């Protein structure tokens, strides 16, 4: 798994630096909702990494290397988790560095709560998208991703307009660890699905 992780890091360094830059810029904006973009970029990153592998057909060499299918799948998740973790730490550091000299530090309980929600969104999106990407490849996966983003956006707008107060009340009664637990649960359910999908794709 270490080799694949290193490979993805190199790819990220060479073509994915724009993601990191954009993510960091978003985290600097004190309006907390913008951090959600970071979650979106985490999923996009998984897509880009798969796409680069498919473009050079490395995905067809991969099953011939001494790495089990389970590890190939897990690496995709672990890379996403590490990316989310690093981004969260960077976001906190960036907020502290930029806003504290101006006497305005938005990192409080509310910020951490929203950050947990964003991490949860990132984990849920990753958990939903990776099984599709690993089963059908990045081309079909991208299509499904676009459709699902439209669906989620429309649903969110509908919920916000209809049940804003209910959502707010649910959110105020929810603790940060609840969100993290939900994200972890989705990941745990998603991994076996991805593994089955990847096996099916290889064995075609």
């Amino acid at each position, binding site marked *: 798994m*270490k*080799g*694949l992780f*290193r*490979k993805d890091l*190199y*790819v990220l360094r*060479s*073509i994915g630096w724009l993601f990191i830059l954009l993510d960091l810029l978003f985290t600097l904006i004190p309006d907390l909702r913008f951090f959600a973009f970071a979650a979106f970029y985490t999923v996009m990153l998984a897509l880009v990494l798969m796409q*680069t*592998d498919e*473009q*050079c*057909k*490395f995905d*067809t*060499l991969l*099953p*011939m*290397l*001494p*790495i*089990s299918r389970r590890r190939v799948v897990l690496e995709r998740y672990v890379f996403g988790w590490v990316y989310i973790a690093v981004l969260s730490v960077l976001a906190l550091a960036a907020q502290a560095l930029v806003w504290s000299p101006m006497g305005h530090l938005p990192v409080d309980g509310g910020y951490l709560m929203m950050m947990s929600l964003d991490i949860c969104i990132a984990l849920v999106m990753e958990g939903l998208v990776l099984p599709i990407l690993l089963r059908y490849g990045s081309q079909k996966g991208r299509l499904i991703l676009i459709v699902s983003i439209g669906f989620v956006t429309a649903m969110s707008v509908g919920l916000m307009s209809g049940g804003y107060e209910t959502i707010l009340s649910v959110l105020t009664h929810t603790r940060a660890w609840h969100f993290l637990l939900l994200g972890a649960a989705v990941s745990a359910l998603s991994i076996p699905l991805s593994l089955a999908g990847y096996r099916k794709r*290889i*064995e*075609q």
Partner: protein
Amino acid sequence: MNAIEVRALGKKYPGFELKNVKFTLPEGCIMGLVGENGAGKSTLIRLIMDAAGRDSGDVRVLGTDNQGPGFVKIKDDIGVVLDDARLPESLNARQLGRVFGDIYSRWDTKVYEDYLKRLDLPEKKRVKDFSRGMKMKLALACALSHDARLLILDEPTGGLDPVVRDEILEILEDFTRREDRSVLISSHIVSDLEKLCDYVAFLHRGELLLFEEKDRLLEEYAIARLPEERLRDLPEEAVHGVRRGKYGAEALVERRRVRVDLPLERPSLEDIIVFFARGEKK
């Protein structure tokens, strides 16, 4: 021990079927897998490496069932080079060395760096800026730097100029100097295989038409050039293919089945393959 044992292997795709393929590659030998484009060479290699699911048959590689739990570990002993190299293109050769160093347990950085120097490959240039020949040489350097016992190469010389092809064949000859090392190489450039191989397998439209020791094949078969009307004098069971031309006919025959006084010529491997592929008889 055998390097590769394939028994009754089958795989069906829409519009293509690999049928009942069986062969054994003994350890220490080089096998050339010949066949036209679309004959099933790459499919066979994917099946051998368990990178595709088979419909029937068995495959054992270096004594291990390729669908068994121990096969992932066995892949550590196998170097693979696929057509187009298929290496991550945004990495450079040095980064690629580090990645493969983490993947293969016996990766030898010194050997890898020596290959990069020997093959004149730049360390800091990205793979995507390499020519096709350079990519193939890099893939070969990766496959040879972890002390593999078996090399599996899919069209490593296809589309390359003769100088690079020769360089690659030279490296493969070096690799097989140690007796426990085996090679399976697929190509449709038969002359490359003739120089290198101990065994030849010929795959045609998903069927293995021929699997034989190369020297035996060259001894066993001969070309008889004769007027067309004399073709019928040849025993039918001796003839494996006929080529008719303006100035007569050529037939690929089994030496032991024809009259001793018949003038025969030694065929090249390419001749034998072409006759088998066309399959035209008297």
